[in-house]
């Protein structure tokens, strides 16, 4: 189906199902209940899930397949966002040209950086990419302020010279990004009993791009090109003595993943038209590395899971405060309530970093293959009867 093997097609269907039904899946708790704190089904976070999912899928094409660990991929995301916002400022508020341009610009930028960085391998390659990204960040934050907006980020203004479109709306406001008139922020809300589900136009556009990206990633993984990339990771000596030139293959993978990053950046700017320099900082590059490893590098679905997990922690755990905790444990006797709250307190709100750090450590200690391996372990527990299944798994191309 669609040029995919049965198993891959099933995976694609699962991803389509998950993204299309995300507003339901992410909002399992009734509105107004104590557990509603854990609901993630609001437009901003849902958009972030898929956008960072795209970013991580792209990163995984480079890192998971070729083993080249780039520490500078956030630069391409940042460049993509800047390109998109400039498109909004100069051309029109339609997101399509902005997204297309951001993919192109990020592709060109990654071609340049990849061409230079890929002259080295291993940690030397990592440091080269890190150096380029840090330079981009430092310059964008300071001397390039006229182009990038610097500290405050590049944003729209009331006097933008928009060629196709108006500078201001009738009510004197800055117009918002839209696709052929459908605003990215437009939402439709569905109340079912005490549950409330939000269907956001921007989210579905981004989700559509995620599905496309995921589909393309499957095709790449299962293509001769993808096999060559895995061969590069496995043995570069044999690669060249088999008559294959590793450089253009790695460069192509680098540019593809750079374009994925640019797509993520363009989508980010389309959902929320502001591009900040911090998007390019090394910590942002490190974040996508963590997402990929956390989910399972070299697997198809892993990076998406990793991205979701980190963004969930960042957005949900950071918002829990002591007042909420006291609300949850109000049923306990006072002394016990305070005790329990005091125990949990360091891990939530301002302590969400601590929780994330612990999760990294636990996952990598107990699940070297990331969350995907965790999923496989659980799945294996349910079908112990078929041991040969587990054996053949090892030889299948990366899942």
């Amino acid at each position, binding site marked *: 189906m669609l040029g995919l093997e049965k198993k891959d097609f099933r995976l694609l269907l699962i991803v389509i199902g998950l993204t299309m039904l995300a507003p339901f899946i992410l909002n399992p708790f009734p509105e107004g209940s104590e557990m509603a704190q854990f609901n993630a089904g609001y437009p901003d976070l849902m958009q972030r899930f898929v956008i960072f999912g795209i970013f991580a899928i792209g990163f995984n094409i480079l890192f998971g397949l070729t083993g080249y660990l780039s520490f500078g991929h956030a630069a391409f995301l940042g460049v993509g966002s800047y390109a998109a916002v400039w498109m909004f400022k100069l051309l029109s508020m339609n997101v399509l040209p902005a997204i297309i341009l951001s993919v192109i610009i990020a592709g060109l930028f990654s071609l340049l950086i990849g061409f230079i960085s890929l002259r080295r391998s291993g940690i030397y390659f990592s440091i080269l990419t890190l150096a380029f990204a840090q330079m981009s960040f430092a310059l964008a934050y300071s001397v390039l302020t006229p182009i990038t907006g*610097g500290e405050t980020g590049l944003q729209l203004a009331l006097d933008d010279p928009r060629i196709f479109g108006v500078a201001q709306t009738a009510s004197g406001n800055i117009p918002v990004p839209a696709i052929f008139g459908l605003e990215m922020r*437009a939402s439709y809300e569905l109340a079912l009993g005490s549950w409330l589900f939000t269907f956001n136009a921007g989210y579905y556009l981004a989700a559509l791009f995620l599905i496309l990206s995921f589909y393309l990633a499957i095709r790449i993984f299962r293509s001769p090109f993808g096999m060559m990339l895995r061969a590069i990771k496995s043995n570069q000596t044999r690669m060249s003595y088999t008559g294959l030139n590793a450089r253009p293959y790695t460069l192509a993978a680098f540019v593809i993943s750079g374009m994925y990053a640019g797509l993520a950046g363009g989508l980010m700017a389309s959902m929320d038209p502001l591009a900040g320099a911090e998007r390019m900082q090394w910590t942002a590059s490190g974040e996508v590395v963590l997402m990929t490893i956390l989910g399972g590098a070299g697997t198809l679905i892993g990076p998406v899971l990793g991205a979701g997990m980190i963004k969930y922690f960042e957005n949900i755990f950071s918002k829990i405060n002591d007042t909420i905790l006291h609300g949850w444990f109000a049923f306990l006797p006072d002394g016990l309530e305070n005790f329990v709250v005091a125990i949990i307190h360091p891990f939530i709100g301002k302590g969400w970093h601590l929780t994330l750090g612990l999760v990294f450590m636990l996952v990598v200690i107990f699940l070297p293959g990331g969350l995907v391996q965790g999923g496989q372990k659980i799945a294996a527990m349910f079908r112990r009867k078929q041991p040969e299944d587990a054996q053949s798994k090892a030889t299948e191309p990366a899942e």
Partner: protein
Amino acid sequence: MSNSKFSRRGVLKTGMVASAGLALPQYLRADSHAGFTNAPGDSEVILGFNVPQTGPYADEGADELRAYELAVEHLNGGGDGGMLGTFSSKALDGTGILGREVKYVTGDTQTKSDAARASARSMIEKDGAIMITGGSSSGVAVAVQALCQEAGIIFMAGLTHSNDTTGKDKRANGFRHFFNSYMSGAALAPVLAANYGTDRKAYHLTADYNWGYTTEEAVKSSTEAMGWETVNAVKTPLTQTDFSSYIAPVLNSGADVLVLNHYGGNMVNSLTNAVQFGLREAQANGKNFEIVVPLYSRLMARGAGANVSGIFGSTNWHWSLQDAGSQAFTRSFGTKYGFPPSQAAHTTYVQTLLYADAVTRAGSFNPCAVAEALEDFEFDGLGNGPTLYRGADHQCFKDVLVVKGKENPENEFDLLEIVEVTPVGQVTYAPDHPQFAGGALGSCNPGA
């Protein structure tokens, strides 16, 4: 499709129980009833406190959060009422806002514009916050302000000092109580001239980003107007931690004053380094060498320890002010938390009260009504003397404090002493002043 844009869960939470059961999909029209985003229900109203909880400004964020919690307590009639008693407007009576109990949600800006906007959006989209406030840097303030404008939410800025927040990046839905770079320069210059003379040569070290630029410009133009000369102005990277190579050449540059346009960790390190190099004891051009820090923060001054003593700077507010409002606030904050509040705590507390008061006076949560009530509002009793919320740019105009690091502080909170309270007249500027040029408020956006 209905463009409900941003949901208003406040309404739903209360109104939903009635419509329980397997309802058919329906377009939610509550928005259009109220005509603005996140119209609150009848019993409670939700405010969003968006402060840095991780990263280098986490302590300032924590102090802001304390002030917010205190403000909520006072608005809901708890505690000793704080500045509600001294506020010139008597609209607030301790029954919440327009009879609704004040609830709040918190978030982490991480002092990054992306994270701050994500957090603000989640407050608006998920929690149904009607107003967002907080922040501890201008980058974040400008970013969140623009977001609130788009969403149709009022933004009450926290600690943000760049001219741009109410200058080129001002927005109709955003309001700033805190002072700015221009005011710092205008307040400092006369005091510096009086103490150090008008024949001085200044060397600027400036943080290489927007806030640094506006502060350097403001201090430069104000001091040059007093007769000072600017010898050199060097930009330093935000990520710099060791400033020795920037400080070392200063003493031999012909300058006799060093101006550190730095904030936060940069300020702590550059000041510590400068003192290490012996600049405070040095002589230049036959005069004592002096250091100036245009924007002081008591929390950050603590990091520099004894190095701040004798060094001039400006600040928005200080707990040792003797007016009734400041005293009341310091008392209720100190009683609750055991130590005096910072200027960040003060401005966020005041912003919360000002918002609540404006809603009450307007009789509506509609952002446009609230904005109208805030614009050109004159008030007193909130710690800075008579104050004007100017309608033209949504900036508060009030007295500015010039402070000096104390020589012999009694404890870690007692680091600054007030040298002069510069009257508001001296720090007022025209809305179209060149340092604030290049932006427009636009018109208020109620969202929905």
